[in-house]
């Protein structure tokens, strides 16, 4: 099942499942969240790269993280202009800071926008997204 999305269907370098990020997406299908960490400089590197963004070493390891973090900022989108979202509007996008340090852009799901503020504790959940194949890490409120 390949869904129609011209932005992604361009293949390597511009779309989903780039070579640099393939392991991230494979892990996501197993409901595991992995990020890179550099053996040379200890920095977390995200999004995935082949060369360390900070010290340029070829020393990036994948580490599994707990998937717990906090809302760094968020915005609830009330207009249906994104090709993939349709009747899911309004939906919330957020920057989440993982407890281990890296930041991700994600959706916050299964809650009302009023339930979210900067600092709200969240945890990863894996779900599908409109017009996309496979599982994506998303976040929900943590008890």
């Amino acid at each position, binding site marked *: 099942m390949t869904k129609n999305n*011209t*932005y*992604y269907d361009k293949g390597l370098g*511009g*779309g*989903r*499942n*780039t070579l640099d*990020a393939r392991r991230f997406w494979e892990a996501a299908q197993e409901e595991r969240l992995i990020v890179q960490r550099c053996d040379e400089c200890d*920095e*977390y*590197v*995200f*999004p995935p790269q082949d060369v360390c*963004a*900070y010290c340029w070493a070829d020393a990036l390891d994948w580490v599994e993280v707990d998937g717990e973090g906090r809302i*760094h*900022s*968020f*915005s*609830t*989108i*009330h*207009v249906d*202009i*994104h*090709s*993939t*979202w349709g009747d*899911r509007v309004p*939906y919330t*996008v*957020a*920057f989440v*800071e993982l407890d281990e*340090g*890296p*930041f*991700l*852009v*994600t*959706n916050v799901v299964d809650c009302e*926008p009023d339930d979210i503020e*900067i600092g709200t504790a969240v945890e990863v959940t894996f779900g599908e*997204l*409109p017009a*996309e194949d496979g599982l*994506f890490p*998303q976040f929900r409120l943590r008890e």
Partner: protein
Amino acid sequence: MANRPQAAIVGYGDAFADFDDPKPPITLAARAVREAVEDAGLDRSDVRGQGLLTARRPAADHRPQWNNALASYLNLAPTYSTEVTMHSAGAVSMIEHASMAVREGAVEYVVCAGADAAASLGAYPHIAPSSDKYTNYTEFAGTMDVHPEFEYPYGIIMPAAFGMGARRQMHELGHTAEEFAMASVVCREWGIEFPHATLGHKGPITVEDVLESPMIASPIRLLNVMPLGPGGSGGAFVVTSVENAESLDADPVYVDGYGARATHEHVTPRLNCPYWPERGNLTDTGMADAAERAFAMADLGPADIDVVETDAGTSNAVPLMLEDLGFCEKGDGGKFVREGHIDPDGGSIAFNTDGGALTAGQSGVTLYVDRIIECLRQLRGEALGKQADGVERGLVYATGGPLYACNTIAILSNTR
């Protein structure tokens, strides 16, 4: 070390199109170039074989190497030519590149031009604007510049990226939705008299109007977002050496300084970058560094500036810009707006005198060319709308990409 001025802008031209009477970007750019060369007291033979720089290729003309397309159209046959991008911010970098080229002696004249045409976007259906062409910037540019793999699938749109930045401003700096609204109100007041302002004909707005307008991407509402328009705009200017400028029958504007800083392409790498200035920081931007560089080169400071032309794609950018460009302390940008420092009546800075992007609009990706031309008009006392009093020095600031990814600044003056 200052060796002001660096170069001189000896002529400018502009061109506009309406939604009812569209013109393609290349037509608008060509008309602006013709006017700029004439304004400089030059002939096309004087600039043929010289320099030609263009801003980022227009959204309404997908040909890459737009500098070559324009060179062909005008038969300019340049010996020094390129497209200067830095997202849309490269429009202001044309001033830097052209100044270096004439100082170096590579060419005597550099023609700089940019144009776009919202009304012609239909030629490219995949980015065609919605039926509400006057307000829906979001559909036009909503998903441009987001990371294709780690941001786009989540439905992030540009106003949401700026919305998340705005929320950090509120959290860290104490900026308020009222102050963001006030910035929209001020830009509307400045732009009402500008004849090509997309929203000028709608008249003044109040803080309540902004706060009651439909939510786009919280906390960003419709009247916090720039409109798509006018139907088309183009601008051009001619840069030459200070020595050359004196021999021309022109009214020169001098280039005192410039600076640039590009920090990232997408928001996610920026958030994760430990250097700018630390992981997760969204409220300190590269614009502060670009401004310091420009002011140092010009041997001037913010207090010397009379007019500021910039864009704010969303109005929460206004207080942030006022802080990072050095007009007030970090965290005081909202207060600075609230206290009336950028008001048309009684303010201390003439700010976005054509209404900026929030009122004049953006005709496409090359909106900063419009801001450069407005600055030149103010410095020459030739504003089409509200002319500020006693203008001697102007600052043009452009930002391109999500959350101030690219920052370019030029400081211009009408005296040596």
